[in-house]
């Protein structure tokens, strides 16, 4: 299993410890440049940008831009990349990154065809790399590193891990957690697509062994069976840390895509009832509203005291 903290923090003693370099693919685009700035402000060490044809220029007079990921990797030594290219160029950009040695690829674009995602995941698997997304808000260790498009306000450092399919619900629920005194050790956006580079179960496996982890919040939504799979896994391994879930889409009609490509119930596949009942089986309470999440989490913590 990939040690996500090693990837995001580095090793104590290394020169880049707690300031791991990140490459931004599509850094000169409107979206890419906006978020590159926001990540830099947050303290993320953006070491290079990639935009074909703009090699040699500098972003904000500081960050060197390269024509290819290979050049960016060679010059910076970074093995993390965040991709902002339009969906139809994602396959090419992601392949290029993985072939250049990127080990953590954060895929922001929405509307990537599933076949392209599957091809990228196939390659990532061969290269032993982790893909977060597509259609993800990103991944962050609050107060240390933000690789994504999330606004900084809802998050604060702490000991709760938050895994979420939805972006805005991740912000909303982290905000509620922060206000209730629950900071976050890490937040991972799974993404709203049908096929995810890092599924809920993969994200869970990345965080389950954090030694000082005090709780876990899972924010799911209708579509697929990622939540059911995670709940079953939690039962199987006997994970005992306080865990609370939230599922969006209980009132959504069947067979309709609710904004996210992945948020669709087909027959009974992907229904909220199925997810809620699996979480209940795993003894994980499911909040009815986002604001209820910290309340349930506090309750779980009292039980386990």
């Amino acid at each position: 299993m990939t040690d996500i903290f090693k990837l995001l923090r580095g090793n104590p003693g290394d020169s880049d410890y707690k300031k791991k370099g990140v490459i931004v693919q599509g850094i000169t685009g409107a979206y890419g440049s906006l978020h590159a700035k926001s990540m830099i402000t947050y303290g993320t060490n953006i070491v290079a940008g990639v935009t074909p044809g703009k090699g040699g220029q500098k972003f904000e007079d500081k960050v060197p831009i390269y024509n290819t990921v290979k050049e960016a990797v060679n010059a910076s030594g970074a093995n993390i990349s965040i991709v902002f290219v339009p969906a139809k160029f994602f396959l090419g950009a992601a392949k290029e990154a993985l072939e250049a040695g990127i080990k953590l690829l954060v895929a922001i674009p929405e509307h990537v065809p599933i076949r392209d995602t599957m091809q990228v995941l196939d390659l990532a698997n061969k290269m032993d790399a982790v893909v977060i997304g597509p259609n993800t808000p990103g991944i962050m260790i609050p107060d240390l590193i933000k690789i994504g498009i999330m606004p900084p306000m809802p998050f604060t450092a702490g000991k709760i891990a938050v895994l979420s399919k939805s972006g805005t619900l991740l912000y909303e629920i982290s905000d509620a957690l922060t206000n209730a005194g629950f900071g976050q050790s890490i937040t991972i956006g799974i993404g709203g697509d049908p096929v995810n580079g890092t599924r809920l179960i993969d994200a869970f496996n990345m965080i389950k062994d954090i030694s000082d982890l005090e709780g876990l919040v899972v924010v799911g939504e209708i579509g697929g069976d990622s939540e059911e799979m995670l709940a079953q896994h939690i039962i199987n391994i006997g994970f005992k840390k306080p865990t609370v879930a939230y599922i969006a889409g209980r009132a959504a009609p069947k067979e309709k895509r609710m904004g996210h490509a992945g948020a669709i119930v087909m027959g009974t596949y992907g229904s909220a009832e199925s997810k809620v009942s699996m979480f209940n089986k795993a003894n994980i309470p499911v909040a009815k509203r986002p604001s209820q999440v910290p309340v349930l989490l506090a309750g779980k913590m009292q039980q386990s005291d």
Partner: protein
Amino acid sequence: MQLLEFQAKELFRIYGINLLPSIASTTIEEGRKHAKELGYPFVIKIQVPVGGRGKAGGIQKCQNDDEFELKYPQVLDLVIKGEKARAILLEKMADIKKELYLSLFLNRSKRCYTIIASPEGGVEIESVKNQIIREVGLGEVSEQVAREVAKEMKLEGKTADEFVDILKKLAKLTVEKEAELAEINPLAIMQDGSLIALDGKFVTDDNSNFRHDELQKYQEKTEIEERAEKSGFSIVELDGDIAVVGNGAGLVMSTLDMLSDNGGKPACFLDVGGGATTESVYEALTLISKMTRVRGILVNLYGGIVKTTVVAEAFLKAYEDNVIDLPVFARLKGTEAEKAKEMLKESRTKIFDSIEDAINAAVMGIKK
């Protein structure tokens, strides 16, 4: 997009999957012509994008002109699960020995295509017994895998050969058109042992539409959906009376859930999206104003990338232009929320600190 039966069958035909003769029409005049071409007996099948057609009376046998004249208009006027007929398919009647099930679907959590086959088809997939499940990576099905499935189905001779052929063709179709689901149910064994696809379901990946001009003729969008797509937000029309507007699919779904829990009925799901501008939100409000059933608007914003002031500005403009004369209940949080609240203070927008309060007020306000 989800294709109708006759559209799925058009693709099946192109890929060489055996079908009965059938013709689709949208008026009884066309239907009469087709009836002559096909000859009795045949089956009239309503074309709607939902299941359960048989139970709802949407599939009727016709033996002669009198039955046709009676049943065609009846079936055309049916509404099944809220869906009106898009067309009527006339299909020759068949002498069936047995019904099988066959599909290829995208297994999301295993990230691969999966074959599901069963010797006991003709019922909805949830009730299909003795399922044979086979994972096939990116969707290509080899002769060998197809043979193994046929063997597990206990098919023999000509039936087995045809099954292998159909499975390979269905897989080719699935891969080439980037389908999330390709289903033949039932796949019928005829008296002579040959196989026929009696029904078809085909769901493609909307995100791959740009690579499939040939499928665009099957695209069915309301004017509202089309305008929403152009402006970069997404909308799902529902049958209640409170329009729900927010940013982010998850947040809007969550708002629908809470509204429904409190006895409210959502009129639509409207996600302004991460790239919302004053213009796109203004367009969204214009679309809502066209939905006659809407009696109030519930707004739930968590400003991140989308500034809440951008949304507030669109509302002010919509009030000024008299686009919106409905009560608006809003909860604003996140980027520039204080400023947005200030902007909307003097307007018709009722601002609440929590979404729960906004929902209660909306439900009460609409009842009056």
